[in-house]
């Protein structure tokens, strides 16, 4: 096999991989590197005031409610992973500053593709405006599992 043929096969394999990841509507972590732009998935990063910014980037095959559910599920997963039985959800940083909590993720669109971005604060005890980590996980798990990876 000559060099061109090998390069062609590698290119085709990469293209197929991008298509497979990019077309999926399953719950997943956002890919990094070469195929990042094509892939849907979640990401999180530290935000001011101890908050955690959670984003879920959809793709053109996903519905708004899927991104809504997936983002909230990821928030609960993060809370569970850090040993917090409760968390507070904020739509924006100004909302967090004014303690305007929310009980649902409100997705938007970026170039016609669903996208969600929220902030969470982890809590050890229940209080007005907190969401139960266990309850969110339990409620959304069937929807997450229904879409096979």
């Amino acid at each position: 096999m000559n060099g061109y043929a090998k390069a062609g096969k590698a290119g085709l394999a990469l293209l197929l991989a991008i298509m497979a990841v990019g077309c999926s509507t399953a719950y997943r972590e956002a890919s990094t590197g070469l195929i990042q732009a094509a892939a849907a998935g979640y990401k999180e990063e530290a935000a001011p005031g101890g908050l955690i910014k959670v984003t879920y980037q959809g793709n053109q095959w996903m519905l708004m409610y899927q991104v809504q559910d997936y983002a909230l599920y990821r928030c609960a997963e993060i809370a569970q992973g850090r040993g917090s039985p409760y968390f507070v959800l904020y739509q924006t940083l100004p909302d967090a500053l004014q303690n305007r909590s929310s009980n649902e993720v409100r997705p938007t669109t970026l170039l016609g593709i669903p996208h969600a971005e929220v902030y969470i604060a982890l809590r050890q005890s229940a209080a007005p405006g907190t969401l139960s980590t266990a309850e969110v996980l339990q409620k959304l798990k069937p929807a997450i599992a229904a879409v096979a990876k």
Partner: protein
Amino acid sequence: MAAMTRKSSAFSLLVLILSGCASGPAFQPDLPNSLTAHINNDATGAMLLRGASMHTYASARCEGEQRQANKMSMANQEALATVPVKAGAPLTFALTTLNAQSFKGNWGCSVTSTFTPIAGARYEAVLQTKDDNRTCTVTILDQDKKVIPASHPDYSCSRTITGIVKNGQRYAF
């Protein structure tokens, strides 16, 4: 004479193509337990295409999309289709316009609504666009012309060529 025949054939072919693009149930406004969609499209200018589509959904979350009608050649005011409705079960549907002037621009507007039909009723859903499709609204009326309350999500369930669009606002490409 040969030129005229060619022109006539080309026109017939165009009509056939446009007719082939139309799909969906016929307009039957007297059918009980039904919803008839009307399109009042205010788009102006010479159009390559002026059309509309109707989709229904299994839930208000836009799951289970079914295309009910798709017309690619329409007048400014025209009935699009009549679809059966199930009494007591919330019905989510989307009405979407599409106006095409090719390189000059292509645009439309889409509205998704949810309402709960009652047994035996006949409904009309009127999509009215405004300011050349900058905004659009849907009004649902029963057979007595009474306005039926409906809910409208932030984003339309209908996927346009530009993806998911805001409910009742223009999309363009």
